[in-house]
């Protein structure tokens, strides 16, 4: 049997084999060879003891540190983190009023009416001859458009009532107007 390390001391290759011996990573023949040597070599025993001590300290340190985390449940956190896209997907396809089509019109009709009234008001205000320096302060709902103007910087209110033109009786009259 060849000596496993010389009198000069332990080189890196040999120390790595010692480490592998401790970790149970050597084949049986090499393991036996090193095992026999260790029984007689104080230097190798010391290295093995130190490796063992280092391993124990690392484990104790890790156990102590991790003991604070042991009670923390992880799954609820992970489930919450995974959940948002699924919740959004669920909410997306159907609205609450979808099964009741009549409800839709309850929202859509007033919206159309509002747009329509807005368009009429806009058109009327554009066509109404506003007195100089006056601003429209109101519109009265009546068969004929009625506008309330107020002069800037004064308390005078002007009320304009627009009477519709009488409808032409014949096609000629309509053309002449």
């Amino acid at each position, binding site marked *: 049997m060849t000596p496993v390390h010389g009198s000069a001391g332990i080189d890196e290759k040999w120390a790595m084999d010692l*480490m592998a011996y401790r970790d149970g990573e050597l084949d049986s023949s090499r393991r036996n060879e090193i095992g026999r040597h260790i029984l007689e070599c104080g230097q190798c025993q010391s290295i093995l003891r130190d490796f063992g001590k280092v391993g124990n300290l690392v484990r104790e340190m*890790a156990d102590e540190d991790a003991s604070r985390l*042991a009670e923390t449940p992880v799954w609820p956190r992970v489930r919450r983190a995974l959940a948002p896209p699924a919740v959004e997907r669920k909410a997306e396809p159907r609205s609450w009023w979808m099964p009741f089509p009549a409800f839709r019109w309850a929202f859509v009709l007033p919206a159309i009416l509002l747009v329509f009234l807005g368009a009429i008001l806009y058109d009327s205000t554009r066509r109404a001859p506003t007195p100089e320096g006056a601003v429209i302060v109101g519109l009265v709902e009546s068969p004929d458009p009625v506008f309330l103007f107020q002069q800037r910087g004064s308390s005078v209110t002007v009320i304009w009532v627009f009477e519709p033109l009488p409808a032409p009786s014949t096609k000629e009259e309509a053309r002449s107007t």
Partner: protein
Amino acid sequence: MDPEERDLVRAARNGDEEAFGRLVERTQSRLARLLRGMVRDDDEAMDLVQETYIKAHRSLDTFREGSAFGTWLHRIGVNTAIDQLRKRAAFAASSIEGPASAEGDTPDPAGASERPTPDRVLEGEEAGKALRRALNSMPPEHKATILLREIEGLSYDEIAEITGTAVGTVMSRLFYVRRKLREALREHR
């Protein structure tokens, strides 16, 4: 992989959230211990654990049934922690405060350094500090290697699979870390 775990993985792959939840509960303590050992911070470790499970959930389709779920999960966790430690190192390097000091030198908000633990009873408080300081100064890949060996008791082959390196690299990293930690312990004596 034991039959129950295999069934849970199959169910989780088919969209069973509760099955995935059970896998989380079965594996979380080991994963938390490993990642806590790597980042040395409770909150950061829990964030990493959560991130690991989210990544695992999203890539369940890539999991091969023949392999061990724990090994696969550890690979995701270790890579996530290594990325995090690299980001932290880059931030520390670019910060005007300078590099982050070793854990042994800084006040420990969780009070870990104040508690009596077996290592301090046997080796004294300074041994624990010296070891933490030495471990903290290791590159992330080296830290992962020693923790996988000492905490998880994994073989060199398994460590190589998790860290995506050759067995020879695992051996040399382990040897480097153990030598450094041994020196750190000897220095404080």
